């Protein structure tokens, strides 16, 4: 799990707990549950990063496809498809990490406001 994924939440003031979103009543122990949920989402984000790494490792140069223009075009599209799969995994990882961060913020809010935590999750 890369460092600092959750820190990006602080870059989105409009999504901070207490700045809007949806109120819910969270007793203190619910904060622990939200943190545990955030941990699971962080694991999912780490798995996304690992998958993205696999797609990156799959890259090959054009040689195995051949030297004809048609083979080079095929190789170029293969490379583009791999890049697309890597991008998919990274976007999922980012989105999942964002959700984990928001759960953590909501858990903190639960602690600081007692029974009036907020969890903002709008995309």
């Amino acid at each position, binding site marked *: 799990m890369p460092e600092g994924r959750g820190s990006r939440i602080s870059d989105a003031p409009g999504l901070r707990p207490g700045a809007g979103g949806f109120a819910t009543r969270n007793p203190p122990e619910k904060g622990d549950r939200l943190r545990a949920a955030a941990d699971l989402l962080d694991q999912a984000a780490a798995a996304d990063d690992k998958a993205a790494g696999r797609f990156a490792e*799959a890259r090959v140069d054009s040689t195995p496809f*051949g030297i004809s223009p*048609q*083979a080079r075009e*095929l190789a170029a599209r*293969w490379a583009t498809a*791999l890049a697309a799969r890597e991008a*998919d995994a990274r976007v999922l990882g980012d989105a999942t990490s964002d959700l984990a961060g928001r759960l953590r913020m909501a858990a903190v809010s639960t602690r600081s406001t007692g029974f009036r935590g907020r969890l903002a999750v709008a995309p």
Partner: protein
Amino acid sequence: MTAEVFEHPALVSAASELSALRAAAGRLGVADPVAALRHLDCAPASIRTSASAVDTGALGVTAAQAEFRAGVERAENGGSTDAFGTWADTVDGQYAAAARAAAATAALGVRIADRLDELAVAASEEVCALAAAASAPVSAVLAGDRSAEVVSEVSATCTAVIRAVQEKIAALTALAAELEPLTAPVVELS
């Protein structure tokens, strides 16, 4: 005689079979049939290795989705909002789309490797048959015969070899077209 260096073993064999034809072509100054084979040379094993890595990545996305769902379930049991659940459903759907696209990419990679293999083998068989059929005029040319008939036969055989290779190469365009839909990201989260 030194074996020609090709990635694909079938083409190594074909190049060997075409050595006399190539020598005759050189004497007559017509197109080199072995050089034509180079345009079809490929290394399907490397592409299979690449596809295998993609398949591993696809399984990784599926595993990530399972962990994502576990986290979402825990959050919902922990008092998350309906809005959280709605957004989580959206992300979950994108996980499924990404996993499908990755699995499809891996499968097509394997098929591309198989097809390249088939084309190389088929071309090799075809050009070897052409060379075998022209063995008499090839021998005649190599022995110094320059009669119109043998020269024409050797030249026509070299042209046929080149055409056979070109036909196989043309098949790659269809594979590229199949790959095209997988070249764009499928995850859309904004």
